[in-house]
């Protein structure tokens, strides 16, 4: 029975892996194909079934003929995502600690209402915010700038950071804070030396969410920028002309996924290790 169970489990994992990995393999092979090879039916083996070409990859760099520059948007995307995520994580963690440990009164609103206010930002459809954000950035003179996008992304990512971190802080008994203070820590030292080190998995989860949401955003990058600033998702869509260039779309898709895969690989071990070490009881 046990071996049958193991076999079934292995089969299920294999099937799911294939399901997840297949699109990447498909994109990888397509990115090395020419227009003819793409339209002549499904082929997978380079040199045997089709002649590989670097055409799809060359288009991504300005130096090559009528291609588009993907390096600029790539760096812009990296800068905007990393900055906005870092700011959101710092502010969100501090806000979450406050909401978890102190009592606030805002008129008739209490801690729960304030926390919900943060989360509710993510409940409404993003399009509702498009015009307010547009007008705000216009007023600030930050339309079509990286700084403007950072501000908008912080507004979008902060709720995620607060939401994740409040939960983690609430799972640490208050008595741990109290003990730290009895042991001579000021409230700031308590947060920095005792609470934060115990929330590493939370920081990883919140950071991961921020980076993924920020990196993948198309809507605000599209509506709030025009010519000076362009983020990667917008640049990739701009590749699409009268003829769909499947080869360069595939190449740019792989390039845009790469950093997230990198982040996931690096942080994954903190996640699994943190889940075990974070158990408090």
């Amino acid at each position, binding site marked *: 029975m046990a071996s049958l169970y193991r076999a079934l489990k292995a089969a299920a994992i294999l099937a799911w892996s294939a399901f997840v990995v297949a699109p990447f393999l498909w994109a990888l092979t397509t990115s090395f194909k020419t227009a003819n090879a793409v339209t002549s039916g499904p082929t997978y083996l380079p040199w045997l079934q089709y002649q590989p070409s670097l055409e799809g990859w060359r288009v991504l760099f300005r130096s090559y003929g009528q291609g588009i520059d993907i390096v600029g948007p790539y760096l812009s995307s990296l800068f905007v995502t990393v900055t906005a995520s870092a700011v959101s994580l710092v502010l969100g963690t501090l806000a979450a600690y406050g909401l978890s440990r102190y009592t606030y009164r805002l008129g008739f609103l209490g801690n729960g209402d304030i926390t919900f206010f943060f989360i509710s930002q993510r409940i409404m459809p993003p399009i509702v915010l498009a015009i307010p954000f547009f007008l705000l950035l216009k007023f600030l003179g930050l339309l079509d700038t990286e700084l403007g996008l950072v501000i908008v992304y912080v507004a979008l990512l902060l709720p995620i950071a607060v939401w994740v971190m409040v939960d983690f802080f609430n799972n*640490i*008994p208050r*008595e*741990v804070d*109290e*003990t*730290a*203070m*009895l*042991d*001579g*820590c*000021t409230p700031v*030292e308590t947060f920095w030396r*005792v609470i934060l*080190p*115990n929330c*590493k998995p939370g920081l990883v989860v919140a950071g991961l969410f921020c980076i993924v949401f920020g990196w993948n955003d198309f809507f605000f990058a599209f509506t709030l920028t025009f010519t000076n600033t362009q983020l990667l998702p917008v640049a990739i869509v701009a590749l699409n002309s009268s003829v769909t260039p499947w080869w360069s779309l595939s190449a740019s898709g792989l390039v845009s996924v790469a950093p997230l895969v990198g982040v996931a690989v690096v942080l994954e071990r903190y996640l699994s290790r943190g889940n075990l*070490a*974070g*158990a*408090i*009881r």
Partner: protein
Amino acid sequence: MSGNAAPLVAEGLSRSVDGEVHLAGVSLSLEPGRFYTLLGPTLAGKTSLLRVLAGLDPAQSGSMVMGGRDLLRAPVWTRSVAMVYQQFINYPHLTVHDNVAFPLRRAKRSAAEVDRTVRETAEKLGLTPFLGRKCSELSGGQQQRTALARALVKGADLLLLDEPLVNLDYKLREQLREEFVNLFSDKGSTIVVYASTEPLEALMLGGTVLVMSEGRLLQAGPAHEVFARPASEEVARIFNDPPMNLLDGAVSDGELILPGGIRKPTAGHLASLRPGRYRFGIRAGDIRVGGAGVPVRMELAEISGSVTYLHVSLDGAPLVIQQAGVHSHALGETIVADVDATALYAFAEDGRLAAAPAGGGEGGFRDGSWRESS
């Protein structure tokens, strides 16, 4: 341990939360180097008092001074206090060694001194084999030992223990309690306050007992004295497990009249009672089964360790009798019970003690004798 040898004097500490009174004007004076047991039932305000003493919660009125310093205005992290909670509270991201070292490092002790002190304390508490482990990898008992080591290591002026054994299993509780007696015998000038709901613990740990109920301090004094001469009915009830039996009765014509037609001569310590109505207190162990007694009706027999607690009805009044050994009784059965008049307490109608037996009664748990039967 600590060089500061000043008493902690608190006057009229009060605290209520959302209209609910947690402390109703508690005044006490705690001497350095003494051991105090804060005894009271659940919700008596023990934890509230400890938290105010620690500076974790503010008192709404009253004062708390130690060596000329106003403690109510001092931030917690500038105070010299250690606290052990009911729950096992440690720093989960640190090893046992670093947990115990934490307060010393915060106090900027040298690395060599930190390491030496941590190892000494760990040895005393049997934690040496676990120094390299994370607290989440320890059993409950070891976690609480770690918390205790961290509280002891810094030699604070005030060491507060809030029912530290209540979440441990019975065997471990017994074992740690015995170790406590040794641990706290060498407490230097530290004031130790140990909160407990168990009368037995107060007697075993010795020192001064502070009996608390409903946010008030009812009586303070050496544990055995308070046990032998509870100032009021309430103290007598709190300081006995099972709670002291209380029977409405009267004294008239040199005779003591109890429910169920029990009549006893007012001899010995009862001779000074003036005629009138009283409530008489008798410990479960001072009622004997059999002999020249009165009939009582069995309602429940509860076997606990090597004794049996008989819950009976004496003419409608509930009574608990402690019978040595394991016995089985049928419910509804009528047995004969005899109250030992030399062990009777008498309380006036306002609840205050009117007469107490010399030596505190026969069925009391004096020193080790009670432990065997619990």
